[in-house]
């Protein structure tokens, strides 16, 4: 299967040539990669904290609940927050930009 043979190369070349498209691509990369790195570091750092700062993680917040447990649960929350952030970013920044490029090309 060759990808995209329905549209001639001209559309591709024209899209690729627009400065707006380069901008769009940069914007997405600037979001996706730092975000991936950030969440990876946050997860891995938690394990490090648990290994080398057990007293810190064992601080009681309330009753049976330790700080470690709270940060652990926060990991789930972070996953959800990053996802929501990405969806909002894509809706607000990526989609309108793409629509604008399309309009420009079609006109």
């Amino acid at each position: 299967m060759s990808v995209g043979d329905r549209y001639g190369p001209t559309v591709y070349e024209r899209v690729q040539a627009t400065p707006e498209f380069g901008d769009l691509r940069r914007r997405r990369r600037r979001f996706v990669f730092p975000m991936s790195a950030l969440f990876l570091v946050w997860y891995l750092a938690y394990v490090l904290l648990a290994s080398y700062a057990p007293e810190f993680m064992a601080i009681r917040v309330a009753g049976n609940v330790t700080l470690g447990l709270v940060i652990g649960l926060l990991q789930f929350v972070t996953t959800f927050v990053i996802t929501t952030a990405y969806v909002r970013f894509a809706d607000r920044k990526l989609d309108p930009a793409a629509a604008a490029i399309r309009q420009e090309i079609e006109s």
Partner: protein
Amino acid sequence: MDTPSLVALVAIGLVGIASVLIGTLGVRVARSTSDFLVASRTVGAVPNAAAISGEYLSAATFLGVAGIVLREGADGLWYPIAFCAGYLALLLLVAAPLRRSGAYTIPDFAEARLHARGLRRLCTGLVLLIGWLYLLPQLQGAGLALTTLTTLPGWVGVVGAGVLVILSVVGGGMRSITFVQAFQYWLKLTALTVPALIALALFLGSGRELDRPTAPVFAEETTVSVETPVRLEVAADTALRARGTVDGAAVDGPLVWAPGVHDVQAGTELRFAAGSGVPVPAGAPPTDREWLEPHSGGATLLEIYSIMIAGIAGTMGLPHVLVRFYTNPDGRAARRTTVVVLAMIGAVFALVSLLGLLSRAFTPELLVDGRTDGAVLLVPTAVLGDGWAGWLLGGLVSAGAAAAFLSTSSGLVVSLAGVLFTDVLSGRLRDFRIAAVLSAIVPVAPALLVGRMDFALTVPLVFAVAAATFCPLLVLGVWWRGLTPTGAVAGLLVGALLSCVGVASTLVGSVPEGAFGVLLLRPAAVAVPAAFLTMIVVSRLTKATVPADVDRTLLQLHAPERLGLSRERLDSQ
């Protein structure tokens, strides 16, 4: 057979019948992309998200996470966190570009991106390997559920589960599979919420607590039959009666275990008085306080990192997960669905983790005979007692377990059958049903032959194979124009080899102690970076073979749908 067994069997039977019925209401067999696309146009966002979650949350999750938490405590939370994060990695790095590529299996993607038949064949082989490896613990989970809940032998569960999966897959189309899996998600959620709330209320009302400097205690006199050899650890002197072989000597009578590790042979019966401390599997935190606190270091740190890398990078490489994105009409809808999916998956993980925590108070005897994976199934009768209330709640949980098993296994079998049908059987057997039967039957034999291992061991291992092979292929394929066919093949082979050494040594069951042993069982920390590195280095060495149309392909992968550049295969059919 006693009443609770019958109740559980009836509940499991009802789920099977309901799934097959909902499945057969659809007419067509899901065998091509167009079926997924048809599903995408007729299925709403919430049922679709429920179906995705239903498919992702396997029997291993439903049963395994609680078992891990029961044994490992706070350190066990890593597994659900990594599985959730895997979904995020999939969303950020590959979901939308793959949705746009028009390729709905990994072999399709590999060929569209790099135009190499050999690479496609390698990918096909890996999809089958990963899918079959992942079906193994699912089938064995069905066997475990049956032996835990009834007096039937485990093989009945394995074989029965295989038959049910074949019936529901062969009967239905993608649209109906979507509804089956959505139904199964809601059933799983209910089957966890009700016992979790009841157990939580009773636990809080009983004034018991989990934060004790001692081991958990038996609430009443308990006899445990040890069926596979175990090494148990006690934190304080523990009195018990034993009949069988303990610490290498035949015993029949009272014993006192000194703090430390004790070997118990298969066929031994251990009896503990009410209030006596519960021994835990060697290596697991023996006291409740240690169990509640995350504490790792050295080899454990390496192990946890490896589990996390496997979960985060492996989710995108599971054959049934990726395909599901095709039931979204476009990338925008795919993103929205993912948010709902994460909330749904998160809810289930939170509930199973809670059940795992509470099972430490209600079913500590599972720590002794190594059946921690049965915790979710046994909490109902432990909480509500041996009466109709407990049996019915047990029936609900067994229905949930059956749904968990069926949804993931059906999804896997559909994906595997799709690959078998187009890549392996093409031209010989033009029948998708045969491919489906074949996909489901192959893993049954090893599931029966290989002894059951904890989900904590088998599931991350399958994720590790996926992480070390398809994760680098997908991430580099989507984001790096320098990838060459030779580089991809070399990376896949290195990743597969390194991770499969782990699979083989786990199946054989001989693993040395120390960091090397940890890496054999948890190969992701080494295998994933090695596969990435090999792919990059070999691609650099074979620079001349970068496909000529790479810019066009990448443009199509990255240009949002609204540019109108992506192409759905339905259009060309």
